[in-house]
């Protein structure tokens, strides 16, 4: 018996060093403009001008067909770009979700009209998407959603509420998992995905402040919103399966272990400034590097799977499980290795960024599925029955 998960080694394309150098050069221009607080927000941080600039470089929708504004590059090339962005803590929030999930979904199962309308806007950094999954009465239990789209002539009427939608107040569109037939007891059956233009009448967005005091989350209410015939994404009734395979994209990326990474360079400099590092500091940094290297190896392997058309659902769960443990430990590590002079104060670049990360850390293990959900997926994958 071998490992129940496959992380087969991949060969990075020859263009890797050049592409990486380009991205680093680009980031070196932009990142000095961002505060440690903003950098600490990683991919939930949002900057429209930045996203447009990224789009102009051809780094959004990289793997998509040219006819929709894409660049027909490999998943591995895309990997190089996004890991560099995340490691630098660039505020990619305006294009992140669309590039990672919504765009690929539209490309895979969307109508020609949907593709023509949205993909080019995403690629240029102009269209921000959000995902409507959770509802007030259904947290992890997504199959119990109550938001309902009812047939109305050619189109649909949508009513219900979605919550914890990241950056909805900045988004043009949401792809929501809704019920199109049956009731909550039907569970996975009768669920569909619909694309909602958030500027439509009847859509109301309430911002929810999180621990950082900012509103990255929202509650979005649909009060009899009239959707056109083209709102359905993919096959009616196939929303559950479509949504789950979309989540695998969300889970396998380097955002599952790099959200807190920007703390590390500042921490290392702080340690170095204090003189010869002691065992505690040296060990923690070395250990973290080894953990990051292993996670990166696993993550690159799943990018290879995507290139080969394989489904990394199981591997993505493993990466999220291992990655989130490391990520949630990072703000604690900063505190343990570099105690600040003023107890509890959040002044200074490292302390400021640490505060931003620490206050988001409790949600690291929630987004993309809780630990309990991940471990359940893994157990099932390993054949525990």
């Amino acid at each position, binding site marked *: 018996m071998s490992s129940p998960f496959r992380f087969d080694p991949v060969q990075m394309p020859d263009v*890797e060093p050049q592409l990486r150098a380009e991205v680093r050069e680009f980031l070196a221009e932009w990142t000095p403009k961002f505060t440690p607080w903003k950098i600490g927000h990683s991919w939930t941080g949002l900057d429209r001008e930045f996203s447009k600039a990224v789009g102009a470089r051809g780094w959004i929708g990289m793997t998509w067909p040219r006819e929709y504004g894409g660049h027909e590059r490999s998943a591995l090339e895309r990997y190089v770009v996004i890991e560099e962005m995340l*490691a630098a803590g660039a505020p990619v929030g305006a294009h992140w979700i669309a590039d990672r999930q919504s765009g690929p979904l539209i490309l895979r199962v969307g109508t020609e009209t949907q593709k023509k309308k949205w993909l080019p806007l995403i690629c240029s950094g102009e269209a921000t998407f959000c995902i409507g999954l959770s509802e007030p009465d259904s947290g992890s239990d997504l199959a119990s959603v109550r938001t309902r789209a009812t047939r109305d002539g050619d189109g649909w009427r949508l009513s219900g509420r979605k919550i914890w939608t990241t950056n909805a107040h900045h988004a043009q569109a949401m792809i929501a998992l809704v019920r199109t037939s049956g009731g909550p007891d039907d569970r996975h059956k009768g669920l569909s995905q619909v694309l909602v233009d958030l500027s439509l009448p009847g859509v109301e967005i309430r911002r929810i402040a999180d621990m950082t005091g900012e509103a990255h989350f929202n509650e979005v209410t649909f009060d009899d919103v009239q959707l056109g015939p083209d709102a359905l994404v993919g096959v009616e009734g196939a929303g559950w399966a479509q949504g789950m395979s979309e989540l695998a994209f969300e889970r396998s990326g380097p955002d599952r272990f790099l959200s807190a*990474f920007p703390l590390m*360079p500042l921490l290392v400099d702080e340690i170095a400034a204090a003189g010869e590092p002691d065992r505690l500091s040296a060990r923690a940094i070395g250990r973290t590097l080894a*953990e990051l290297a*292993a996670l990166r190896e696993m993550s690159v392997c799943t990018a290879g799977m995507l290139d080969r058309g394989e489904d990394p659902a199981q591997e993505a769960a493993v990466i999220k499980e291992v990655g989130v443990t490391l990520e949630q430990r990072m703000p604690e590590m900063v505190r343990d290795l570099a105690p600040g002079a003023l107890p509890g104060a959040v002044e200074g670049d490292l302390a400021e960024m640490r505060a931003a990360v620490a206050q988001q850390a409790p949600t690291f293990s929630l987004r993309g599925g809780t630990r309990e959900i991940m471990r359940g997926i*893994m157990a099932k994958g390993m054949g*525990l029955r």
Partner: protein
Amino acid sequence: MSLDTDTATLLADQLDRLFAQKVDAKLLRKVEAGEPAAALEAEVEALGLTLALVPEEAGGAGLAWSEIGGVLESLGRFVAPLALAERMAAGWAMAKAGMEVPEDVPLATWDRLTLSGDKVSGTATIPFGRPGAKVLATAGEGEAAKLVLLEIPEGRALPTIGRDPRLLVEFASAAPLASAPDPMGGEALPAALAVVRAGQIAGAINHALAESIDYGNTRVQFGRPIGKFQAIQHLVAEQAGEAAAAKAAVQLALRGMDEAPSWQAAAVAKIRAGLAVEPVSAVAHAVHGAIGVTEEHMLHHTTRRLWQWRDEAGDENAWSERLGRAAIAGGGGELWKTVVALSGGR
């Protein structure tokens, strides 16, 4: 540790079959009691694996490091009581240093000896060492470091937690049978041995995981298989994450040893695999209950070897300190580049 070539797959499969037949708790108890697994050693020798990493032009099998992942995994999975991994590492280092590799590849030690003129001194621990056999060691440091081939003197059995034979010997101005400048400035053998130990650990860990899954599906408590309990499922999931990470770290180190051998790649593998030992074995024992600690059960042996191996060829703390100090000295601006380079990116 995917095997890219047919040869490599074949070899690992052969080894798996051999070990599955011959290595069990009974054999391990015998070896611990001081009786070498001579027959098994002879059979493995016959497979020619000790010369696996020696280039064909130097009389070896010419396999790459990334092709022997399966072999290391097999050695770990069965906690095979012989010095195959160490001899593969020794053969690789000798060939790399341009030394002639004898068909009877020497044993190896991770201990660093001192070099004074042409004579070497110091203490060395030699896995499966026996007086009269030969051992490859590192003598001296940095540019002046040499690989030295030595005859093993009388020594004493070192009591260890793994209880596999470890011979502790003292060299006092010993004259090497052969020597050559270390091709990695004194790092070749320590790095190679760290990688093979990490590979064995990854194999043993993935075995412990497989055993936990199997036991979870068969052991019935409170009227159902314990693997149905959410608490057990989550423990095994934690274990699986650690096992996967350890294996990935070994995979990248093996590739690193082929492309640009460095102590850094070895460090990543040994650190990550070493870190996984405690959580994986803790869960394995929690799942198995008391049965897992009994000497009749393979988990008993797997756990003790894991504890042994993580300490050898540099434990995860020592390697972490070294890797950490280098990174801190390099400064925060270089840190991400280091992560990319450590995992084979360019």
